[in-house]
């Protein structure tokens, strides 16, 4: 079903976060591929912050994503 307003906002926030800090690919990809990339990058982020690794956007993960932080990516090459 369609995402509710808050869920959509949270999803957008998470995508932006994962793109910036975990190299979530941007651009045109199949919906299936996008969902798989999102899940695997989310798991990478949860592992880094020692959260429960679910691949789902739970409250604890969102809490971490909204905290003040350094702009340098946590993983991968820093361009």
């Amino acid at each position: 079903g369609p995402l509710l307003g808050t869920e959509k906002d949270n999803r957008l926030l998470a995508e932006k976060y994962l793109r910036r800090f975990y190299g979530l690919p941007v651009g045109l990809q199949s919906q299936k591929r996008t969902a798989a990339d999102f899940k695997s990058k989310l798991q990478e982020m949860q592992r880094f912050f020692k959260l429960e690794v679910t691949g789902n956007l739970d409250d604890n993960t969102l809490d971490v994503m909204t905290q003040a932080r350094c702009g340098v990516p946590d993983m991968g090459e820093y361009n």
Partner: protein
Amino acid sequence: HFPRHLKWKNNIVTFRIVNYTPDLRKSDVDRAIRTALNVWSDATPLRFKKLYYGTADIMISFGRKEHGDHNPFDGPNGLLAHAYPPGQGIGGDTHFDEDEHWSKDSSAYNLFIVAAHELGHALGMSHSTDSGALMYPIYSYATGYPLAEDDVKGIQALYGPNPDHKKIKPKPDAPQKCDPTLSFDAATELRGETIIFKDKFYWRLHPQMHEPELTLIKSTWPSIPNKVDAAYENPEKDQVIIFSGIRMWALNGYNLVEGYPKYIHKLGLPKSVRKLDAAVHIKDKGKTLLFHEEEYWSYDEASGTMDSGYPRSIENDFPGMDDEVDAAVYHYGFLYFFHDHTQYEYSYTSRKVIRVLRTNFILGC
């Protein structure tokens, strides 16, 4: 470290402060940057030379939104700063978000702490997964020497140790919740959550949270000490009392109650008690038990006086328990005592130990 272990080739690294934030005096910015650089030079053979014009290895500036590197900031909060790993051109450059409010204390984002973290990047350090490390990506306020063991190991792997400073005292690494030898400093309830203090950190356990959350004490309560000896919640007053040495603080939720710290002797403890080991409030009785070495006292919250006939022996009154306690919490008629790496589940009504578990069982281990 960053991929390819980027580092400066020379141990003398130049820096220049290109512009200043209006939030602080120029001299405060200079001091914050210099102190932040000293944090790293104390641990390594690196020396930092300030330039007033021209191009330095590390160019330090304040800017907002898109500020010239195609790596924009995001307005207040969120991203605070970023820095580039060692290299030519933009390499080593360190940028602070001017949309943040910068301070030299805990009232806003502390420039020294953020600068020390960013300059770590400028020297080749990547992010740490240790929440007690300076290189952990999330901002938290703390006082004292900012480098943890993990930071020191990281920077010394790149540049080696400082030949002149044989003794640097890194702050302890974040405690590992599943370490079988883990012991607690203190534990308390806080509005339905359990808070467990260990070194400079506390774990927050919520019935609906799968994983305990570990945070630096100072980042939540900058004015309480880094070491908590004992703590308890008085739900009637909606207060948590924190004990450290001969002083105690009262918290209302996450706010500090005015009029504190007070001396623990105000509770009626003898002057010979210089610190408590544990404290726990028995809600049904309105009593608070205060533990010190092998004895404990009972404090009546309603009258604000110590009950007569105390101190009494822990060993005699709590059969099956050790004779000392590190931390204690009370849930639905059960007392949970923690001593070293053992947890005792004690039935207050039947006056006996029901279960003996590892201390970190409460943390899901």
